[in-house]
């Protein structure tokens, strides 16, 4: 206890409350935001003092003795005597033992280091904890794994402005920490993660060493006790090139090691994938959704699978998506088949609405749903490796929704069937506002909600991210144990979704630099501001070095490692 440094005293000019008090900083000492401090108070009749821990949330410096703004000039010219005083606002984090009393003015305040810091931030009580970043003063910030793996809670939600908030980078860093910190126990190497790459090629090089990782950044990994290495077990999936009969993957800058994915026509019929082509298929106000559900049911019952994924529907052999929707159109428009396929007493207008939408989906989906490629099993996203990256960046919005919806449902169903929580599956999905918007219903939103509400017991953990939490379904966010905010838009920061941030933190969220996040976890009453190291894996082709595993050299990137992130 004696190793901690006295920094000031509790002031008596502002009232001290158990939750919040001000500390005057002594001459020759300083406090910065997020510093952890401790102050003791001896209660009457007690043998040992109680320790009140807190974190610096705000600081103010002023001239004592000045009464007018212009006095500053007089003071600087040496005309008016005044004293510079500095005070720090401290938000209490913990009372040990738990007696909620305010500190007494005049009490000595020390910076909490070592064991005291652990106690202040509840790290001492975390049996399984993983490093989630470094504080401003270079100390490790931990998160309780029990709130991540479903033991006591699950799910992570990350908010922040696109480009500067480094949401995806942080999500990937969390995965890295989960996989390599050893805190998941024996299940760690069976644990899997599924990431959707929604923008650029950022996530297509996770298995490559980052050549721009310099010694300083590598040292930060060392400080976190994490290896500075890329992901060892990665599979990359990309959609097929449109119009390419051999279904070669449509990749950008990454070409090797990428497999194309698609669903066969028989999957499409058997697994009832049709509704995922319609964003508003669950909206009861829409008449044509009845048709969608009827056709889906009909396809499941009537489609006869052929080799290589083709189907035979009502006597028509379908090899392409075009064939299939043509067959569907014929059936729903044929007066004889209409009651069976579209449903009874469905108006012509509703049929037309359905057909129109079906044809509109053709361009987006025809390369993703097909029966014209040999060995289609090779193109089924199998999740054999630890980390599965599905690239949807180059797909249209409708196709993105289709892929995300179908993949999520499949993985969730698979998990449901096994019935076991272990091994865990982490799903990283950016742009949650697109998939689980606050208003309206859609098949994907239902799956995400299901995942948020039941995923904890099923071992499916959602690491979701979005620019604006206010536009995402409340229940998805409410179920997240860990909430993270990167740089926020100032209008957004004022919304109630960020009530977990105290006022000072909200203001800070509007000026956070890339690589800095604010993390709130259930055990801590105060969110922690942390920095995470520059990715040890490549995020761009020019960063990509050799694959992970060996102790390859690290280049010297120099400068701000997060430079250029603004162009994401």
């Amino acid at each position, binding site marked *: 206890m004696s190793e901690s440094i006295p920094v000031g005293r509790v002031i008596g000019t502002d009232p001290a409350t158990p939750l919040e008090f001000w500390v005057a900083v002594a001459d020759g000492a300083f406090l910065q935001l997020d510093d952890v401090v401790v102050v003791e108070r001896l209660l009457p009749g007690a043998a040992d003092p109680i320790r009140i821990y807190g974190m610096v949330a705000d600081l103010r410096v002023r001239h004592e003795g000045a009464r007018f703004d212009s006095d500053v000039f007089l003071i600087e010219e040496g*005309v*008016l005597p005044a004293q510079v005083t500095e005070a720090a606002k401290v938000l209490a984090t913990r009372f040990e033992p738990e007696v909620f009393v305010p500190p007494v003015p005049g009490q000595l305040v020390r910076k909490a280091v070592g064991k005291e810091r652990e106690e202040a931030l509840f790290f001492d009580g975390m049996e399984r904890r993983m490093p989630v970043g470094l504080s401003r003063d270079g100390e490790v910030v931990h998160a309780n794994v029990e709130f991540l793996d479903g033991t006591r809670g699950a799910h992570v939600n990350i908010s922040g402005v696109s480009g500067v908030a480094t949401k995806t980078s942080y999500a990937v860093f969390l995965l890295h920490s989960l996989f390599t910190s050893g805190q998941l126990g024996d299940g760690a190497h069976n644990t899997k993660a599924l990431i959707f790459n929604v923008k650029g090629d950022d996530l297509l090089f996770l298995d490559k060493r980052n050549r721009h990782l310099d010694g300083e950044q590598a040292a930060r990994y060392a400080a976190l006790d994490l290896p500075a290495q890329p992901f060892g077990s990665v599979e990359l999936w990309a959609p097929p090139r449109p119009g390419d009969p051999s279904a070669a993957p449509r990749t950008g800058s990454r070409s090797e090691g990428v497999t194309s994915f698609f669903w066969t026509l028989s999957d499409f019929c058997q697994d009832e994938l049709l509704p995922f082509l319609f964003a508003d298929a669950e909206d009861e106000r829409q008449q044509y959704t009845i048709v969608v559900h009827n056709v889906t049911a009909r396809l499941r019952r009537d489609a006869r699978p052929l080799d290589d994924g083709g189907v035979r529907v009502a006597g028509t052999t379908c090899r392409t998506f075009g064939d299939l929707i043509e067959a569907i159109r014929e059936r729903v428009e044929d007066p004889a088949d209409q009651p069976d396929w579209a449903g009874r007493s469905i108006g012509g207008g509703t049929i037309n609405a359905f057909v129109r939408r079906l044809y509109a989906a053709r361009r987006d989906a025809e390369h993703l749903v097909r029966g014209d490629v040999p060995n289609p099993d090779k193109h089924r996203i199998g999740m054999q490796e630890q980390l599965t990256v599905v690239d949807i960046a180059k797909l249209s919005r409708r196709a993105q929704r289709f892929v995300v919806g179908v993949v999520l449902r499949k993985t969730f169903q698979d998990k449901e069937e096994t019935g076991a929580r272990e091994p865990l599956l982490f799903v990283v999905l950016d742009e949650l506002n697109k998939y689980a918007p606050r208003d309206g219903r859609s098949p994907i939103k239902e799956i995400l909600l299901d995942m948020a509400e039941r995923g904890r017991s099923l071992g499916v953990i959602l690491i979701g991210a979005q620019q604006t939490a206010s536009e995402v379904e409340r229940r998805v966010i409410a179920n997240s144990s860990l909430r993270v905010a990167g740089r926020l838009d100032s209008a957004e920061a004022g919304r109630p979704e960020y009530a977990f941030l105290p006022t000072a933190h909200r203001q800070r969220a509007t000026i956070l630099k890339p690589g800095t996040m604010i993390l709130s976890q259930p055990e801590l009453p105060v969110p922690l501001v942390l920095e995470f190291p520059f990715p040890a894996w490549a995020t761009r082709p020019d960063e990509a070095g050799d694959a992970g595993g060996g102790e390859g050299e690290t280049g010297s990137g120099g400068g701000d490692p997060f430079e250029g992130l603004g162009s994401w």
Partner: protein
Amino acid sequence: MKRFESLAVEGWSPEFGSPVEAKREEIPGEQVDPGVELPESEWRPLPAGERREIPGRVYFVDGVRRIEARVWMSGEDEPRLGICASYAAGMVRCGSRAEIVAAEVRRGFFGQAGVPDLVTRVGTFAACPVAEDDIEQLVNGLQERMGQLEVEVAGGWGARRSRRRSARVGLGSDSNGTNPPLHSGALMLMDGPLRGRQRIPGAIGYVKSHRVQYLGAAPRAVVGQLAPRERTPVFLIQTKWTRYSWYLRLTEAQGHPWAGIVRCEAWPETELEQVRKIADATAVVLPRFASEPHKDDRAPQNLYPIAGLERQLHHRLGDRGVVFRALHQAAAEYRPTG
């Protein structure tokens, strides 16, 4: 009927009176010698700006006092009146920054002989016997103690400094040839006249208000003609005690000719040449510290450093209500000793 050409509002707040009394006490002509620097016939405003040597440091010494309570002391005889008072003195050093370098607070119990020490929870009011116990004498006693404390603060601090390096307090006190006297020297101003104070070499009295008419009509007219950074010639006052004195103007005259005029005093032991240098230095330096009307109720005469020091000293006297309650409690619990 008499006609007035213009009106002007006095710059000082009314509760502080006026820096210039309408009826000033006249001093017999022979007690003032206006001719020590220039013959009376040659009196004119002396611009100090010609001298570029200005003191590197200026010290301001001031004290404050507050009567906390009147206390009746009863015994076998008639009850006697005493006062419990707090007083403080401090010093500001104005160099590149203005710093309060010394501040002392004392508490005293003023009364006739036999007045006890009064121990309270905010501190002990030390017995300060005075000859008479009418309120005027009691207040004088307090004023005297405060003056002593001012000297103590100024002198004590000077002494501490002189142990560390050559004494620089007092203008030109290190005129040993290695340093030009004015440039490297320091100026020390005591707020108020020098009367009744122990002597600190080089200290200057700074008088804000003018209640006594020292000069005859002709030299007095020169005071009204002063421009900022100008002073009158030095004159010698020989009333009950002797001192050099001069007037200077801090700011442009606003309203009436004596607005912004202050008077300084120097000990007679100082050589006249030295006094002239000091007088020039004050005329150059003091306008810089003059206060603005919206910031001080006694602008411009109440200088910024002094106002700042007074605020700080008043603050250090403590909360009036707390002291008053402590005195109540102490008086109730008082038991004579011995």
